[in-house]
């Protein structure tokens, strides 16, 4: 469980959940695979098996809030949305900013969206969603269970070929 979240990393650019994802899953017209490939930096791209996740979940709303027209899972969202209507934006990145920490994430991003404040950024939206569920259903939770470290990643973590020479020495005092 220690590995629970070796995860995506800093300095990533935009996570491209390809535009295909925008297509409604209600109509069952969704991509079978999505390559999340912008993590060129510390981790390799992730090939996300969308079809498998569609099969594994009961409802699109488990990941897509109220946007797919298949109902609402979250009580808080349900206060305003009945989830019966499909939205224009379904892709994660349409709402979740790729900017890791922008003030817009804090305040409501667009006028009229006053309850959409305190949104996680895109990287966190993925991880919070994926890892949260994976923990419940015993899915993989280790960082490298989903994406392999690049050389830059190993350097960053001082691991692999960049591991400290005498790792016996403890880091405390």
């Amino acid at each position, binding site marked *: *469980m*220690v*590995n*629970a*979240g*070796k*995860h*995506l*990393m*800093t*300095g990533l650019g935009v996570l491209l959940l390809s535009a295909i994802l925008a297509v409604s899953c209600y109509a069952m017209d969704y991509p079978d695979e999505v390559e999340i490939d912008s993590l060129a930096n510390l981790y390799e791209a992730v090939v996300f098996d969308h079809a498998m996740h569609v099969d594994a979940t009961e409802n699109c709303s488990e990941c897509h809030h109220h946007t797919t027209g298949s109902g609402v899972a979250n009580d*808080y969202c349900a206060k305003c949305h009945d989830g019966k209507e499909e939205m224009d934006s379904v892709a994660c990145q349409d709402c979740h900013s790729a900017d*890791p*920490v922008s*003030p817009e*994430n*804090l*305040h409501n991003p667009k006028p009229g969206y006053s309850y959409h*404040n*305190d949104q*996680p*950024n895109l*990287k*966190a939206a993925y*991880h*919070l969603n994926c*890892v949260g569920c994976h*923990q419940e259903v015993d899915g993989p*939770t280790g*960082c490298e269970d989903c994406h392999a470290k690049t050389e830059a990643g190993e350097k*960053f*973590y*001082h*691991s*692999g070929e*960049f*591991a*400290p020479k*005498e*790792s016996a*020495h*403890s*880091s*405390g*005092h």
Partner: protein
Amino acid sequence: MSKITRRKFLAASAAGGTAIMMAPTKKAFAAGSFEGFPDGMGVLVDLTRCVGCRTCEAACNKEQQLPEPAKPFDDYSVFDEIHHGQKRRTTDKAYTIVNRYELKDTEEPLYRKIQCNHCNEPACLTSCFVNAYKKTPEGAVIYDSHVCVGCRNCMIACPFHIPAYTYHSVLNPVIKKCIFCYDTRLKEGKPPACVESCPQQVMTFGKRKDLMKIAHERIKKNPGKYVDHVYGEKEVGGTGWFYISNAPFEEAGFDVHLPKKPIIDNVKDFLAIVPVVLTVWPALFTGFHLLATKGKSHGHGDDHSHDEQGGH
């Protein structure tokens, strides 16, 4: 307003101790003031989100150009490390560390990132006798190592056991601690490296007062998820980094007995007597002297013998 007055008073009263003997420059007294900054930045740390990946540790190491760690940052055996019966703490080589805490009620452990909390009225700052610390308007508590004498009083004072000391440096040992990435990021309005690196957005960066609202909102929006307390809202006068958690804070290793008032308030009583002693004592004791020696010669017995002896 009253706050400022009180602080000025404290600084002035302590300074008074020296003024009577050899007043240093006026500027020095001003240097003792440490008003909180209403628009200061802060970080909301949501402990429910942390998965213990230690990415933030790696990011800090890189950003602050710290020495190579003893173990890789993706080595999770560090969570089992125990030093003197304690979990890991910040050191001069690691400004932030993540610890794991087993909880009473749930299987899932809780991970907690530890770094300087950038207090509103920092104990480290007020205890420093060369005024090396500074609370910047941006909210960071930074530190000028060029004046550090190495008395380590700030380490005694910090209620969170944060500052560390480079004991092994011969010529230039100094205090080391998290500086909110002030030089490289905060100054330009950018979030700290650790905040940016976190895959779970455990940390949310923004104005302290905005974040405080969000913290309470998150607690309210998710009934049953969080304990109803924002650690750092009031503790020791409020901290720039503060925490919300699903487990009681003592189970996550927080000191829940800290006073709500700033640490410096403890010292207030003492500092307040300083000017009193300085003004009353001389009069009092000179008075005693005059009374006690009244009717007797004011000179000293042996003085006379010396006057006579002077001729030798």
